[in-house]
Protein backbone atom coordinates (compact mmCIF):
# COMPACT_ATOMS: atom_id res chain seq x y z
CA UNK A 1 0.00 0.00 0.00
CA UNK A 2 1.19 3.49 -0.85
CA UNK A 3 -0.10 6.89 0.14
CA UNK A 4 0.08 7.94 -3.49
CA UNK A 5 -3.14 9.70 -4.32
CA UNK A 6 -4.81 8.51 -1.12
CA UNK A 7 -5.07 11.83 0.75
CA UNK A 8 -5.84 15.47 -0.11
CA UNK A 9 -4.92 18.78 1.50
CA UNK A 10 -8.32 20.46 1.44
CA UNK A 11 -7.91 23.25 3.99
CA UNK A 12 -5.03 25.65 4.61
CA UNK A 13 -4.82 28.81 6.69
CA UNK A 14 -2.01 31.13 7.67
CA UNK A 15 -2.79 33.23 10.71
CA UNK A 16 -2.59 36.94 9.82
CA UNK A 17 -0.82 37.93 13.05
CA UNK A 18 2.88 38.54 13.26
CA UNK A 19 2.80 39.81 16.83
CA UNK A 20 0.24 38.46 19.32
CA UNK A 21 0.63 40.18 22.68
CA UNK A 22 -3.04 39.66 23.53
CA UNK A 23 -3.59 35.98 22.79
CA UNK A 24 -2.38 32.70 24.23
CA UNK A 25 -0.62 30.09 22.17
CA UNK A 26 -3.55 27.74 22.78
CA UNK A 27 -5.88 30.40 21.41
CA UNK A 28 -3.74 30.79 18.30
CA UNK A 29 -3.83 27.02 17.72
CA UNK A 30 -7.62 27.14 17.89
CA UNK A 31 -7.81 30.12 15.55
CA UNK A 32 -5.55 28.41 13.05
CA UNK A 33 -7.68 25.27 13.28
CA UNK A 34 -10.84 27.26 12.66
CA UNK A 35 -9.24 29.05 9.71
CA UNK A 36 -8.16 25.84 8.01
CA UNK A 37 -11.48 24.11 8.68
CA UNK A 38 -13.43 27.12 7.38
CA UNK A 39 -11.25 27.10 4.27
CA UNK A 40 -12.07 23.45 3.71
CA UNK A 41 -15.74 23.91 4.50
CA UNK A 42 -15.52 21.49 7.42
CA UNK A 43 -16.34 21.81 11.13
CA UNK A 44 -14.47 20.91 14.31
CA UNK A 45 -16.80 17.94 14.69
CA UNK A 46 -15.66 16.58 11.32
CA UNK A 47 -12.10 16.26 12.60
CA UNK A 48 -11.22 12.70 13.59
CA UNK A 49 -7.42 12.99 13.72
CA UNK A 50 -5.24 15.60 15.41
CA UNK A 51 -1.55 16.25 14.87
CA UNK A 52 0.62 18.69 16.80
CA UNK A 53 4.27 19.08 17.76
CA UNK A 54 6.20 20.59 20.63
CA UNK A 55 4.81 24.08 20.09
CA UNK A 56 1.38 22.91 21.31
CA UNK A 57 1.11 23.63 25.03
CA UNK A 58 0.29 20.94 27.54
CA UNK A 59 0.18 17.16 27.52
CA UNK A 60 0.88 15.81 24.04
CA UNK A 61 -2.17 16.24 21.86
CA UNK A 62 -4.48 15.89 24.86
CA UNK A 63 -4.47 19.47 26.14
CA UNK A 64 -5.27 21.00 22.75
CA UNK A 65 -7.91 18.37 21.97
CA UNK A 66 -9.51 19.32 25.29
CA UNK A 67 -9.07 23.07 24.80
CA UNK A 68 -10.50 23.10 21.27
CA UNK A 69 -13.36 20.75 22.10
CA UNK A 70 -12.40 18.11 19.53
CA UNK A 71 -14.71 15.23 20.46
CA UNK A 72 -14.45 12.77 17.60
CA UNK A 73 -10.73 12.02 17.63
CA UNK A 74 -9.68 8.48 16.73
CA UNK A 75 -6.10 9.12 15.69
CA UNK A 76 -3.38 11.24 17.36
CA UNK A 77 0.21 12.01 16.46
CA UNK A 78 2.64 14.27 18.31
CA UNK A 79 5.78 13.44 16.37
CA UNK A 80 8.37 16.15 17.08
CA UNK A 81 11.10 16.95 14.57
CA UNK A 82 11.34 20.68 15.19
CA UNK A 83 10.30 22.95 12.34
CA UNK A 84 9.79 20.07 9.93
CA UNK A 85 7.24 18.39 12.20
CA UNK A 86 4.25 19.52 10.13
CA UNK A 87 5.66 18.00 6.96
CA UNK A 88 6.20 14.76 8.83
CA UNK A 89 2.62 15.07 10.09
CA UNK A 90 1.29 15.51 6.57
CA UNK A 91 2.95 12.28 5.52
CA UNK A 92 1.71 10.50 8.62
CA UNK A 93 -1.80 11.87 8.09
CA UNK A 94 -1.82 10.52 4.55
CA UNK A 95 -0.70 7.13 5.87
CA UNK A 96 -3.41 7.14 8.51
CA UNK A 97 -6.08 8.09 5.97
CA UNK A 98 -4.84 5.50 3.47
CA UNK A 99 -5.01 2.90 6.24
CA UNK A 100 -8.57 3.85 7.09
CA UNK A 101 -7.64 5.15 10.53
CA UNK A 102 -9.21 8.56 9.98
CA UNK A 103 -10.78 10.75 7.33
CA UNK A 104 -10.19 14.35 8.42
CA UNK A 105 -6.81 15.16 9.95
CA UNK A 106 -6.12 18.54 11.53
CA UNK A 107 -2.49 19.69 11.86
CA UNK A 108 -1.86 22.88 13.85
CA UNK A 109 1.14 25.07 14.64
CA UNK A 110 1.21 28.26 16.72
CA UNK A 111 3.50 30.18 19.02
CA UNK A 112 4.48 33.62 20.29
CA UNK A 113 8.26 34.01 20.35
CA UNK A 114 7.90 37.80 20.16
CA UNK A 115 5.91 37.69 23.38
CA UNK A 116 7.81 35.34 25.58
CA UNK A 117 7.49 32.11 23.70
CA UNK A 118 5.58 29.02 24.61
CA UNK A 119 7.24 28.41 27.92
CA UNK A 120 5.20 28.08 31.11
CA UNK A 121 5.96 31.14 33.19
CA UNK A 122 7.18 33.02 30.16
CA UNK A 123 5.66 36.25 28.97
CA UNK A 124 8.38 38.69 29.83
CA UNK A 125 10.18 38.50 26.53
CA UNK A 126 7.99 40.89 24.61
CA UNK A 127 5.12 43.31 25.02
CA UNK A 128 2.79 40.83 26.69
CA UNK A 129 2.10 41.41 30.38
CA UNK A 130 4.94 39.97 32.38
CA UNK A 131 4.57 37.11 34.80
CA UNK A 132 1.92 35.37 32.76
CA UNK A 133 2.19 31.76 31.65
CA UNK A 134 1.68 30.66 28.08
CA UNK A 135 1.78 26.99 28.93
CA UNK A 136 -0.95 24.39 29.23
CA UNK A 137 -4.24 26.29 29.34
CA UNK A 138 -5.67 24.03 32.03
CA UNK A 139 -2.65 24.19 34.35
CA UNK A 140 -3.77 27.12 36.51
CA UNK A 141 -7.04 25.35 37.21
CA UNK A 142 -5.66 21.88 37.86
CA UNK A 143 -2.02 21.57 38.83
CA UNK A 144 -2.34 23.56 42.05
CA UNK A 145 -4.61 21.00 43.72
CA UNK A 146 -2.05 18.32 44.47
CA UNK A 147 -3.33 15.85 41.93
CA UNK A 148 -1.16 12.76 41.57
CA UNK A 149 -1.83 9.49 39.87
CA UNK A 150 -2.79 8.03 43.26
CA UNK A 151 -5.53 10.46 44.17
CA UNK A 152 -6.86 11.12 40.66
CA UNK A 153 -7.31 7.37 40.19
CA UNK A 154 -8.66 7.27 43.72
CA UNK A 155 -11.39 9.66 42.58
CA UNK A 156 -12.34 7.22 39.81
CA UNK A 157 -12.46 4.31 42.23
CA UNK A 158 -14.55 6.34 44.68
CA UNK A 159 -17.14 7.16 42.01
CA UNK A 160 -17.14 3.61 40.65
CA UNK A 161 -17.87 2.30 44.13
CA UNK A 162 -20.62 4.88 44.55
CA UNK A 163 -22.35 4.06 41.28
CA UNK A 164 -21.81 0.31 41.06
CA UNK A 165 -21.14 -0.92 44.57
CA UNK A 166 -17.62 -2.01 43.70
CA UNK A 167 -15.68 -2.98 46.84
CA UNK A 168 -12.08 -2.76 48.01
CA UNK A 169 -12.06 -6.54 48.30
CA UNK A 170 -12.99 -6.89 44.63
CA UNK A 171 -10.23 -4.46 43.62
CA UNK A 172 -7.81 -6.40 45.79
CA UNK A 173 -8.39 -9.53 43.71
CA UNK A 174 -6.62 -7.78 40.83
CA UNK A 175 -3.46 -7.38 42.89
CA UNK A 176 -3.80 -10.93 44.18
CA UNK A 177 -3.95 -12.25 40.61
CA UNK A 178 -0.92 -10.19 39.56
CA UNK A 179 1.03 -11.46 42.56
CA UNK A 180 0.20 -15.08 41.71
CA UNK A 181 1.79 -14.47 38.31
CA UNK A 182 4.77 -12.48 39.61
CA UNK A 183 5.94 -15.32 41.85
CA UNK A 184 7.18 -17.12 38.73
CA UNK A 185 8.97 -14.10 37.26
CA UNK A 186 12.59 -14.03 38.43
CA UNK A 187 12.85 -10.35 37.49
CA UNK A 188 9.66 -9.24 39.23
CA UNK A 189 10.11 -6.33 41.64
CA UNK A 190 7.59 -7.94 44.03
CA UNK A 191 7.53 -11.74 43.98
CA UNK A 192 5.47 -12.45 47.09
CA UNK A 193 1.96 -13.79 46.72
CA UNK A 194 -0.51 -11.58 48.58
CA UNK A 195 -4.04 -12.13 49.85
CA UNK A 196 -7.15 -9.98 49.63
CA UNK A 197 -6.80 -9.31 53.35
CA UNK A 198 -3.22 -8.10 52.94
CA UNK A 199 -4.28 -5.68 50.20
CA UNK A 200 -7.23 -4.16 52.03
CA UNK A 201 -5.24 -3.96 55.26
CA UNK A 202 -2.26 -2.23 53.67
CA UNK A 203 -2.08 1.45 54.53
CA UNK A 204 -4.34 3.88 52.77
CA UNK A 205 -2.58 6.01 50.17
CA UNK A 206 -5.44 7.88 48.50
CA UNK A 207 -8.97 6.86 49.39
CA UNK A 208 -10.08 4.24 48.51
CA UNK A 209 -6.73 2.97 47.13
CA UNK A 210 -4.35 1.20 49.51
CA UNK A 211 -0.62 0.77 49.14
CA UNK A 212 -1.11 -2.63 47.52
CA UNK A 213 -3.65 -1.22 45.05
CA UNK A 214 -0.75 0.72 43.53
CA UNK A 215 1.82 -0.33 40.95
CA UNK A 216 5.52 -0.53 41.62
CA UNK A 217 7.95 2.25 40.75
CA UNK A 218 10.87 0.85 38.75
CA UNK A 219 13.76 1.87 36.56
CA UNK A 220 14.16 0.03 33.31
CA UNK A 221 12.69 -0.07 29.86
CA UNK A 222 11.82 -2.18 26.86
CA UNK A 223 11.58 -2.13 23.09
CA UNK A 224 9.77 -3.86 20.28
CA UNK A 225 10.54 -4.31 16.59
CA UNK A 226 7.76 -4.25 14.01
CA UNK A 227 8.42 -5.56 10.51
CA UNK A 228 6.77 -6.07 7.15
CA UNK A 229 5.36 -9.53 6.40
CA UNK A 230 8.27 -10.09 4.02
CA UNK A 231 10.89 -9.45 6.70
CA UNK A 232 8.89 -11.48 9.22
CA UNK A 233 8.99 -14.48 6.93
CA UNK A 234 12.78 -14.24 6.72
CA UNK A 235 13.24 -14.33 10.50
CA UNK A 236 13.39 -17.33 12.78
CA UNK A 237 11.07 -16.13 15.55
CA UNK A 238 7.35 -17.01 15.96
CA UNK A 239 5.29 -14.64 13.85
CA UNK A 240 2.97 -12.42 15.86
CA UNK A 241 0.99 -10.16 13.58
CA UNK A 242 -0.93 -7.02 14.30
CA UNK A 243 -4.62 -7.58 13.64
CA UNK A 244 -6.01 -4.29 14.83
CA UNK A 245 -5.31 -1.14 16.76
CA UNK A 246 -7.46 1.63 18.14
CA UNK A 247 -6.74 4.83 19.99
CA UNK A 248 -8.72 7.61 21.62
CA UNK A 249 -8.27 10.60 23.88
CA UNK A 250 -10.61 11.14 26.80
CA UNK A 251 -10.73 14.76 27.85
CA UNK A 252 -13.05 16.88 29.98
CA UNK A 253 -15.27 18.41 27.30
CA UNK A 254 -15.71 21.67 29.14
CA UNK A 255 -16.70 19.87 32.33
CA UNK A 256 -20.06 18.84 30.87
CA UNK A 257 -21.29 15.40 31.85
CA UNK A 258 -18.08 14.46 33.63
CA UNK A 259 -18.07 10.69 34.10
CA UNK A 260 -14.98 9.16 35.69
CA UNK A 261 -16.37 5.63 35.73
CA UNK A 262 -15.24 4.89 32.18
CA UNK A 263 -12.07 5.36 30.17
CA UNK A 264 -11.13 6.01 26.54
CA UNK A 265 -11.10 2.24 26.10
CA UNK A 266 -14.81 2.51 25.27
CA UNK A 267 -13.64 3.99 21.95
CA UNK A 268 -10.17 2.52 21.37
CA UNK A 269 -11.35 -1.02 22.16
CA UNK A 270 -14.19 -1.30 19.64
CA UNK A 271 -11.96 0.26 16.95
CA UNK A 272 -9.32 -2.40 17.51
CA UNK A 273 -11.86 -5.23 17.67
CA UNK A 274 -13.56 -4.04 14.50
CA UNK A 275 -10.31 -3.85 12.57
CA UNK A 276 -9.20 -7.25 13.86
CA UNK A 277 -12.58 -8.80 13.13
CA UNK A 278 -12.72 -10.48 16.53
CA UNK A 279 -14.69 -10.02 19.76
CA UNK A 280 -13.67 -9.95 23.41
CA UNK A 281 -14.87 -13.56 23.75
CA UNK A 282 -12.20 -14.62 21.25
CA UNK A 283 -9.28 -13.21 23.24
CA UNK A 284 -7.14 -15.78 25.09
CA UNK A 285 -4.91 -13.41 27.09
CA UNK A 286 -4.96 -9.71 27.98
CA UNK A 287 -2.26 -7.27 29.01
CA UNK A 288 -4.18 -4.52 30.77
CA UNK A 289 -2.55 -1.34 32.04
CA UNK A 290 -2.40 -1.69 35.80
CA UNK A 291 -1.13 1.52 37.35
CA UNK A 292 -3.72 0.78 40.03
CA UNK A 293 -6.23 -1.98 40.59
CA UNK A 294 -9.10 0.32 39.56
CA UNK A 295 -7.36 0.95 36.23
CA UNK A 296 -7.67 -2.73 35.35
CA UNK A 297 -11.27 -3.03 36.48
CA UNK A 298 -12.50 -0.04 34.49
CA UNK A 299 -10.61 -0.99 31.34
CA UNK A 300 -11.88 -4.59 31.41
CA UNK A 301 -15.42 -3.21 31.53
CA UNK A 302 -14.76 -0.66 28.83
CA UNK A 303 -13.16 -3.20 26.50
CA UNK A 304 -16.27 -5.35 26.78
CA UNK A 305 -14.92 -8.28 28.82
CA UNK A 306 -17.84 -7.70 31.19
CA UNK A 307 -20.68 -5.22 31.46
CA UNK A 308 -20.11 -1.74 32.86
CA UNK A 309 -20.42 -1.91 36.62
CA UNK A 310 -19.85 -5.66 36.81
CA UNK A 311 -16.06 -5.44 36.86
CA UNK A 312 -15.90 -6.04 40.59
CA UNK A 313 -17.67 -9.37 40.34
CA UNK A 314 -15.72 -10.24 37.16
CA UNK A 315 -12.26 -9.87 38.71
CA UNK A 316 -13.10 -11.57 42.01
CA UNK A 317 -12.25 -15.10 43.05
CA UNK A 318 -9.19 -15.44 40.87
CA UNK A 319 -10.85 -14.94 37.50
CA UNK A 320 -7.74 -13.14 36.20
CA UNK A 321 -5.27 -15.83 37.37
CA UNK A 322 -3.76 -17.94 34.61
CA UNK A 323 -4.87 -21.54 34.92
CA UNK A 324 -7.58 -20.62 37.40
CA UNK A 325 -9.85 -17.99 35.90
CA UNK A 326 -11.48 -17.29 32.57
CA UNK A 327 -9.37 -14.28 31.55
CA UNK A 328 -5.66 -14.54 32.36
CA UNK A 329 -4.10 -11.07 32.58
CA UNK A 330 -0.63 -9.61 33.07
CA UNK A 331 1.08 -12.96 33.50
CA UNK A 332 4.46 -11.27 34.04
CA UNK A 333 3.05 -9.79 37.25
CA UNK A 334 2.19 -6.55 35.49
CA UNK A 335 2.87 -3.10 36.76
CA UNK A 336 1.30 -4.06 40.07
CA UNK A 337 4.09 -6.52 40.91
CA UNK A 338 6.65 -6.94 38.16
CA UNK A 339 7.68 -3.74 36.42
CA UNK A 340 6.42 -0.27 35.53
CA UNK A 341 9.51 1.22 33.91
CA UNK A 342 9.71 4.99 34.24
CA UNK A 343 6.01 5.06 35.13
CA UNK A 344 5.04 4.12 31.58
CA UNK A 345 3.48 0.69 31.45
CA UNK A 346 2.45 0.43 27.81
CA UNK A 347 5.69 -1.14 26.60
CA UNK A 348 5.65 -4.01 29.08
CA UNK A 349 2.01 -4.64 28.17
CA UNK A 350 3.01 -5.31 24.58
CA UNK A 351 6.01 -7.43 25.59
CA UNK A 352 4.10 -9.90 27.79
CA UNK A 353 1.33 -10.14 25.18
CA UNK A 354 3.99 -11.09 22.61
CA UNK A 355 5.49 -13.66 25.01
CA UNK A 356 2.07 -15.23 25.45
CA UNK A 357 1.33 -15.26 21.73
CA UNK A 358 4.73 -16.84 21.04
CA UNK A 359 4.14 -19.43 23.77
CA UNK A 360 7.21 -18.09 25.57
CA UNK A 361 5.65 -16.94 28.84
CA UNK A 362 6.72 -18.76 32.01
CA UNK A 363 5.34 -22.33 31.83
CA UNK A 364 3.46 -21.78 35.10
CA UNK A 365 1.46 -18.92 33.55
CA UNK A 366 1.53 -19.70 29.82
CA UNK A 367 -2.01 -19.79 28.44
CA UNK A 368 -2.58 -22.93 26.32
CA UNK A 369 -3.15 -22.38 22.57
CA UNK A 370 -2.71 -18.67 23.09
CA UNK A 371 -3.10 -17.49 19.51
CA UNK A 372 -5.06 -14.28 20.07
CA UNK A 373 -4.02 -11.64 22.61
CA UNK A 374 -4.87 -8.06 23.47
CA UNK A 375 -2.74 -5.30 24.99
CA UNK A 376 -4.31 -2.13 26.26
CA UNK A 377 -3.03 0.99 27.94
CA UNK A 378 -4.10 4.28 29.41
CA UNK A 379 -1.66 7.18 29.61
CA UNK A 380 -2.08 10.36 31.60
CA UNK A 381 -4.78 10.06 34.23
CA UNK A 382 -8.11 8.28 34.18
CA UNK A 383 -9.27 11.00 36.55
CA UNK A 384 -8.27 14.05 34.50
CA UNK A 385 -7.47 13.41 30.82
CA UNK A 386 -5.81 10.50 29.12
CA UNK A 387 -4.99 8.68 25.91
CA UNK A 388 -6.21 5.11 25.45
CA UNK A 389 -4.72 2.59 23.06
CA UNK A 390 -5.69 -0.99 22.27
CA UNK A 391 -3.85 -3.49 20.07
CA UNK A 392 -4.85 -7.01 19.11
CA UNK A 393 -2.17 -9.49 18.09
CA UNK A 394 -2.37 -12.96 16.58
CA UNK A 395 0.18 -15.71 16.31
CA UNK A 396 0.37 -16.84 12.74
CA UNK A 397 -0.05 -20.58 12.45
Amino acid at each position, binding site marked *: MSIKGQAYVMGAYEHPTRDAPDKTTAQLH*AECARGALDDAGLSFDDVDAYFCAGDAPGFGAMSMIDYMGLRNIRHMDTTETGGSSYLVHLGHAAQAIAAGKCQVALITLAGRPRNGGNRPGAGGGGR*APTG*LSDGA*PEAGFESI*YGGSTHNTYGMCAMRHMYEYGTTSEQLAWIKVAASHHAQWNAHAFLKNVVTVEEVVNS*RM*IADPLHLLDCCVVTDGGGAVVVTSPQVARSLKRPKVRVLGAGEAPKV*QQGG*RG*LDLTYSGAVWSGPRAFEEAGVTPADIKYVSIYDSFTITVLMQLEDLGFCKKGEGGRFVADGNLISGVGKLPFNTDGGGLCNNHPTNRGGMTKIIEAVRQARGEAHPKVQVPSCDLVLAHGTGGSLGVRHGSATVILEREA
Partner: protein
Amino acid sequence: MSDTQEAPALMSRPLPAPAVTLESKPFFDAAAEGRFLIKRCTACGEAHWYPRSVCPHCHSPETVWEESPGTGVIYTYSVMWRSPTGPYAIGYVTLDEGPAMLTNFVDVAPDGLSIGMRVKVKFQPTEGGPPAPVFAPA
Protein backbone atom coordinates in the same frame (compact mmCIF):
# COMPACT_ATOMS: atom_id res chain seq x y z
CA MET B 1 8.99 13.16 53.09
CA SER B 2 7.01 11.68 55.92
CA ASP B 3 3.79 9.79 55.61
CA THR B 4 1.01 10.96 57.82
CA GLN B 5 -1.84 8.78 59.02
CA GLU B 6 -3.16 10.94 61.85
CA ALA B 7 -6.16 12.92 60.68
CA PRO B 8 -6.42 16.51 61.88
CA ALA B 9 -9.91 17.72 62.64
CA LEU B 10 -10.22 19.75 59.46
CA MET B 11 -8.24 19.48 56.26
CA SER B 12 -6.32 22.28 54.63
CA ARG B 13 -3.49 22.36 52.16
CA PRO B 14 -1.06 25.08 51.10
CA LEU B 15 -1.62 25.99 47.45
CA PRO B 16 1.20 26.84 45.05
CA ALA B 17 0.75 29.86 42.79
CA PRO B 18 -1.45 29.04 39.80
CA ALA B 19 -0.04 29.57 36.31
CA VAL B 20 -2.05 32.56 35.10
CA THR B 21 -2.43 33.03 31.34
CA LEU B 22 -3.78 35.90 29.26
CA GLU B 23 -7.01 33.94 29.03
CA SER B 24 -7.33 33.19 32.74
CA LYS B 25 -6.14 36.55 34.09
CA PRO B 26 -9.69 37.98 34.43
CA PHE B 27 -10.64 34.93 36.51
CA PHE B 28 -7.77 35.36 38.94
CA ASP B 29 -8.19 39.15 39.05
CA ALA B 30 -11.80 38.58 40.14
CA ALA B 31 -10.67 35.89 42.58
CA ALA B 32 -8.50 38.51 44.27
CA GLU B 33 -11.75 40.42 44.87
CA GLY B 34 -13.52 37.32 46.15
CA ARG B 35 -15.65 36.90 43.05
CA PHE B 36 -16.00 33.52 41.31
CA LEU B 37 -16.29 33.70 37.54
CA ILE B 38 -17.15 31.05 35.01
CA LYS B 39 -17.32 31.31 31.25
CA ARG B 40 -20.46 30.99 29.17
CA CYS B 41 -20.83 30.91 25.42
CA THR B 42 -23.28 33.41 23.97
CA ALA B 43 -23.61 31.35 20.78
CA CYS B 44 -24.80 28.06 22.35
CA GLY B 45 -25.66 29.32 25.83
CA GLU B 46 -23.63 26.65 27.61
CA ALA B 47 -21.29 27.23 30.53
CA HIS B 48 -17.92 25.49 30.57
CA TRP B 49 -14.90 24.85 32.79
CA TYR B 50 -11.97 25.56 32.75
CA PRO B 51 -12.60 29.02 31.34
CA ARG B 52 -11.26 29.64 27.83
CA SER B 53 -11.78 31.98 24.93
CA VAL B 54 -13.13 29.30 22.61
CA CYS B 55 -16.31 27.43 23.58
CA PRO B 56 -15.40 23.73 23.91
CA HIS B 57 -18.99 22.78 23.09
CA CYS B 58 -19.74 24.73 19.89
CA HIS B 59 -16.28 26.18 19.13
CA SER B 60 -17.54 29.75 19.01
CA PRO B 61 -15.12 32.46 20.12
CA GLU B 62 -18.09 34.31 21.69
CA THR B 63 -17.49 33.40 25.32
CA VAL B 64 -18.19 35.81 28.18
CA TRP B 65 -17.41 35.90 31.89
CA GLU B 66 -20.27 35.37 34.30
CA GLU B 67 -20.26 35.71 38.07
CA SER B 68 -21.28 32.49 39.82
CA PRO B 69 -22.29 31.87 43.43
CA GLY B 70 -19.80 28.99 43.33
CA THR B 71 -22.17 26.38 44.67
CA GLY B 72 -22.50 22.77 43.68
CA VAL B 73 -22.22 19.15 44.76
CA ILE B 74 -19.28 16.81 45.15
CA TYR B 75 -19.07 14.48 42.14
CA THR B 76 -16.18 12.49 43.59
CA TYR B 77 -13.17 12.95 45.85
CA SER B 78 -10.12 11.22 47.26
CA VAL B 79 -8.30 11.96 50.49
CA MET B 80 -4.57 11.83 49.92
CA TRP B 81 -2.84 10.37 52.97
CA ARG B 82 0.66 10.25 51.51
CA SER B 83 1.40 13.90 52.09
CA PRO B 84 4.09 15.73 54.07
CA THR B 85 1.61 18.49 54.96
CA GLY B 86 -1.10 16.16 56.22
CA PRO B 87 -4.05 14.59 54.44
CA TYR B 88 -5.86 16.65 51.84
CA ALA B 89 -8.86 16.08 49.61
CA ILE B 90 -8.91 16.47 45.86
CA GLY B 91 -12.14 16.09 43.96
CA TYR B 92 -14.58 17.39 41.42
CA VAL B 93 -17.48 19.73 42.11
CA THR B 94 -20.40 19.77 39.72
CA LEU B 95 -21.32 23.44 39.73
CA ASP B 96 -24.98 24.36 39.77
CA GLU B 97 -24.42 25.90 36.31
CA GLY B 98 -23.49 22.42 35.02
CA PRO B 99 -19.74 22.08 34.50
CA ALA B 100 -17.56 19.98 36.79
CA MET B 101 -14.27 21.40 38.09
CA LEU B 102 -11.24 19.99 39.87
CA THR B 103 -10.55 21.44 43.32
CA ASN B 104 -9.53 20.80 46.92
CA PHE B 105 -12.03 20.40 49.73
CA VAL B 106 -11.19 22.29 52.93
CA ASP B 107 -12.66 22.96 56.37
CA VAL B 108 -13.88 19.39 56.53
CA ALA B 109 -12.55 16.24 58.20
CA PRO B 110 -11.38 13.36 55.99
CA ASP B 111 -14.39 11.30 57.02
CA GLY B 112 -16.76 14.22 56.60
CA LEU B 113 -16.84 14.15 52.81
CA SER B 114 -19.42 12.35 50.71
CA ILE B 115 -20.45 12.23 47.08
CA GLY B 116 -23.46 14.49 46.57
CA MET B 117 -22.56 16.80 49.48
CA ARG B 118 -23.32 20.46 48.82
CA VAL B 119 -20.28 22.70 48.83
CA LYS B 120 -19.50 26.35 48.22
CA VAL B 121 -16.44 28.08 46.85
CA LYS B 122 -14.00 30.02 48.97
CA PHE B 123 -10.78 31.64 47.92
CA GLN B 124 -7.52 30.55 49.46
CA PRO B 125 -4.26 32.49 49.28
CA THR B 126 -1.54 30.85 47.23
CA GLU B 127 2.22 30.94 47.61
CA GLY B 128 3.12 34.12 45.74
CA GLY B 129 0.17 34.10 43.34
CA PRO B 130 -3.45 35.17 43.25
CA PRO B 131 -5.98 33.36 45.46
CA ALA B 132 -7.46 30.18 44.02
CA PRO B 133 -10.85 28.52 44.42
CA VAL B 134 -11.31 25.70 46.92
CA PHE B 135 -14.60 24.35 48.27
CA ALA B 136 -15.99 23.87 51.76
CA PRO B 137 -19.25 22.32 52.98
CA ALA B 138 -22.09 24.73 52.18
